């Protein structure tokens, strides 16, 4: 491709939003932000670029491969942030660590990953989410999960659910077996694929038999409501695993108190992100979409890379993925279109209407009469002033066109609701 041709292109995996989609994007972002603020969360705005060393902290090998890396003028390796949690952890660990706890922070920002564009994955996408820092309690987990359910509800889809896992349960079970790193990886892969044959073969290869083998084979079926926790209790005597179950049971009770239980599926066989998270994990799903729109969990060992160790829990929602299912209305047209004339009364009317919260567009192209009426209709305007002499004007709306004095309109405009 020559450079003239390339000038007109977007790099692979990037997208433009405009019209209805851009309006839906802004509306969803606003809705989520308003929700976060009602729960007492405060905005953080962070740099898009960071040092590679910062942004690679605790990154999985997969995520590390996906970083956009480049060099500054002194040859230091920089990267575009691949998520928002690590930049927030850096801010907290280096700057906010001695502020009154818990810290409740939210963000909305672009993140960048060099992905194969497939299944709803873009190379630049928006994460809107929260981090709750300084509380390791079940109540903290329940607050964040409850907010995640509300974020899913905000999409306006009829069916959604949040799958709640607990990596400490799995770690407790698996650590008790004294497996080699390779053995553990093979087992995690088989559990992740939920492959019965591969799981059996791996257990045989690792010489895991009896109750322990039965327990691992039962992991994929640990999916459902509260009774899952009771089934899980019988699978292991490991104290860490039992304590992890106590914790998740308490979180679930709190969520049930708030009426969220119907949207929660306990999913204790989920092994993804086990290296990163240190307690509960969750993914949000909506009907009609083959991948999750939201994910989160507890990560108590991340902030310690930047400062004092502090417990933290949070989630992020992908706006672009969510827009694939969110119900959106076409962007509303203007409430009033008027000529950009030089009459003071006319300009005051526009200012008054805007101060009342109406959408007002000036025609900047010098059109009047039929030409302005056609332009207003094309914009979906509710009404238009087609011409004006500084005292009286022609106002057109759904009922037709009429002549009216601007003084009367100054009063009438208060009755035009949005």
């Amino acid at each position, binding site marked *: 491709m020559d450079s003239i041709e390339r000038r007109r292109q977007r790099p692979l995996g990037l997208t433009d939003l405009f019209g209805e989609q851009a309006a839906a994007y802004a509306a969803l972002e606003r809705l989520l932000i308003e929700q976060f603020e009602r729960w007492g969360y405060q905005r953080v705005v962070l740099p898009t670029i960071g040092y590679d060393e910062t942004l690679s902290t605790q990154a999985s090998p997969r995520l590390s491969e996906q970083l956009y890396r480049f060099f500054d003028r002194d040859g230091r390796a920089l990267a575009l942030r691949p998520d928002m949690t690590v930049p927030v952890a850096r801010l907290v660990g280096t700057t906010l660590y001695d502020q009154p706890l818990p810290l409740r922070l939210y963000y909305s920002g672009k993140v960048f990953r060099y992905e*194969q564009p*497939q*299944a*709803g994955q873009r190379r630049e996408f928006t994460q809107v989410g929260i981090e709750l820092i300084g509380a390791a309690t079940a109540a903290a987990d329940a607050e964040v999960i409850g907010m995640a359910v509300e974020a899913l509800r905000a999409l306006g889809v009829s*069916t959604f*659910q949040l*799958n709640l896992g607990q990596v400490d349960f799995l770690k407790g079970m698996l650590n008790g077996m004294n497996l080699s790193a390779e053995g553990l990886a093979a087992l995690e892969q088989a559990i*992740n*694929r*939920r*492959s*019965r*044959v*591969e799981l059996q073969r791996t257990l045989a290869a690792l010489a895991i038999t009896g109750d322990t083998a039965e327990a691992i084979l039962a992991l*994929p*079926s640990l*999916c*459902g409501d509260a009774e899952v926790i009771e089934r899980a209790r019988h699978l292991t005597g490991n104290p860490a695993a039992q304590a992890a179950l106590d914790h998740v049971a308490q979180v679930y009770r709190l969520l049930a108190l708030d009426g969220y239980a119907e949207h929660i*599926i306990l*999913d204790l066989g989920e092994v993804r992100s086990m290296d990163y998270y240190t307690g509960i994990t969750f*993914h949000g*799903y909506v*009907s*009609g*979409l*083959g*991948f*999750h729109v939201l994910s989160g969990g507890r990560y108590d060992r991340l902030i310690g890379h930047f400062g004092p160790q502090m417990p933290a829990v949070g989630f992020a929602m992908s706006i672009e993925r969510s827009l694939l299912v969110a119900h959106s209305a076409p962007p509303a047209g203007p409430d009033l279109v008027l000529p950009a004339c030089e009459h003071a009364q006319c300009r005051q009317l526009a200012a008054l209407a805007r101060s009342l919260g109406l959408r007002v567009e000036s025609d900047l192209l010098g059109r009047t009469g039929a030409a302005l009426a056609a332009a207003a209709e094309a914009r979906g305007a509710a009404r238009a002033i087609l011409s004006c002499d500084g005292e009286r004007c022609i106002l057109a709306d759904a009922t037709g066109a009429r002549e009216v004095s601007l003084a009367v309109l100054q009063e009438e405009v208060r009755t035009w609701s949005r």
Partner: protein
Amino acid sequence: MEPLTFALPKGRLQDEVLALLGEAGYALDADVGRRLVFEDRSGALRFIMAKPADVPTYVEYGAAALGVVGLDVLREGRWDVIEPLALGVGVCRLSLAGPASWRGRNLRLQPGLRVASKYPRLTHEFFQAQGISAEIIYLNGSVELAPAVGLADLLVDLVQSGRTLVENGLIELQTILPSEAVLIVNRAAHKMQFERIEAIVDRLAAAVTRREEAQA
């Protein structure tokens, strides 16, 4: 309830998979013919016929909740799906093959080794794992031709009976991946429709077990 969409591979595996589904209780009308979309008689499943290599795409995106695909195709891509069940049909293997003169040669000591394959990623990983540098030549099919015309030294291809290799004067040198048809499921669908999908997996698993017992 809406039927779940099930992507089936057209071609080699098609009849065997349909027979297995029938044994699992998902009966089809006899005259499915060349239709690309059809339901089973109970209305629980809607089948779509796709090119085998496209089945994981339908399933990962969630356009199909379930699908059947050869393990060779599944491992060649980086598909993020779950794979609860091996179906015991379409059993074959991905193998390294070449002219008989290559038997017993140490591939590590063959600089400039050229290997033709329809499976560039699995081939690359196979050689890399053994510290062998090989040039992978991607072909869409009839890979057996490559050594005969001097395009490549060796080839990596799917072997079922081995007859095609013999007819082209080639021998199998090493198995890279044992393969068979596997059931794959979209991750989100598996979460959202856990009980329905687990029931389908259980019925198919029972049918596979019955076949194994009948053969034993």
